[in-house]
């Protein structure tokens, strides 16, 4: 039976092999972190990949779609672009389209957004008294996307038990797997 084979393997591993496996695991985690940080540098965005959480951009994006963002300063914000932004004081990023921009000579820009699937613009979502968004509110511009894949992240968020189960299985697999 599968479970008995696993236990046998664990017993056979001696201490040194266990440390080796733990180091291996550490390497994988570090590499993943480095790739993520590298993406942050290349794209200029603090969050280069985000999951769409609501249906306000349907039928283009649905809950669970994955978006790839860039946030280069040289790319000016223009109408029609899909921006991911955070409202001051709120954690959850919002993915909507730029509806209106007013840019001064010195480059300072204020803009308004609206979800494709919403009837009205986002002024109701902004802070009390806030009429415009500014560059500092932007996390990134959506440049590409992949459908469905982000559902895993949403599931892990909504069902913490699922998240722990996934992490536990991953950890177990890496520790027990012999090369």
């Amino acid at each position, binding site marked *: 039976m599968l479970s008995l084979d696993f236990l046998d393997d664990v017993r056979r591993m001696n201490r040194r092999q266990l440390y080796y496996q733990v180091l291996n695991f550490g390497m994988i985690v570090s590499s993943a972190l480095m790739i993520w940080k590298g993406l942050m540098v290349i794209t200029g965005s603090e969050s280069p990949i985000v999951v769409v959480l609501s249906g306000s951009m349907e*039928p*283009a994006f649905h809950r669970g779609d994955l978006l790839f963002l860039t946030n280069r300063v040289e790319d000016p914000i*223009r*109408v*029609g*672009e*899909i921006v991911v932004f955070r409202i001051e004081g709120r954690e959850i990023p919002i993915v909507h*389209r*730029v*509806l*209106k*921009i*007013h*840019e*001064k*000579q010195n480059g300072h820009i*204020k803009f*308004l957004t609206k979800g*494709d699937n919403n009837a009205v*613009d986002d*002024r109701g979502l902004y802070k009390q008294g806030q*009429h*415009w968004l500014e560059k500092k509110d932007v996390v990134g511009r*959506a*440049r*590409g*996307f*992949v*459908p469905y894949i982000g559902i895993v992240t949403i599931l892990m968020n909504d069902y913490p038990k699922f998240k722990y189960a996934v992490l536990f299985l991953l950890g177990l697999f890496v520790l027990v797997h012999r090369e």
Partner: protein
Amino acid sequence: MFFFHSLPLFALSPTLAYVICQKDFTGPRERSDLGFITFDIKNIFDWNVKQLFLYLSAEYSTKNNALNQVVLWDKIVLRGDNPRLLLKDMKTKYFFFDDGNGLKGNRNVTLTLSWNVVPNAGILPLVTGSGHVSVPFPDTYEITKSY
């Protein structure tokens, strides 16, 4: 990936344009210029993607702001829908409020039609159609109409 079966072409003709000045009830409460434009759109391109997000935007310069862009109208065209549009006498979908009073007498308001291509998966390009149309606003406020 996506391919245009033929060059994207469209014909855009504004038919009426005037400005009034009033409190911007969509947000900032200052009195700003509110522009009204009606237009015709005709497009004749074919495509093969999940969705096209079409939008008509007005671009202009004012004393207050070096660059202003306002989306006046948009439409989602889904794969399978008839891609040929013939729209006449369209009113702007969104309020054309300026940030200030820069619409009155503005001779250089440029209308362009652009679209965001949404593939089934992949890059999300933003394409601007070639050919813009200029809409000159009159030098005085329209006193016979209000909102």
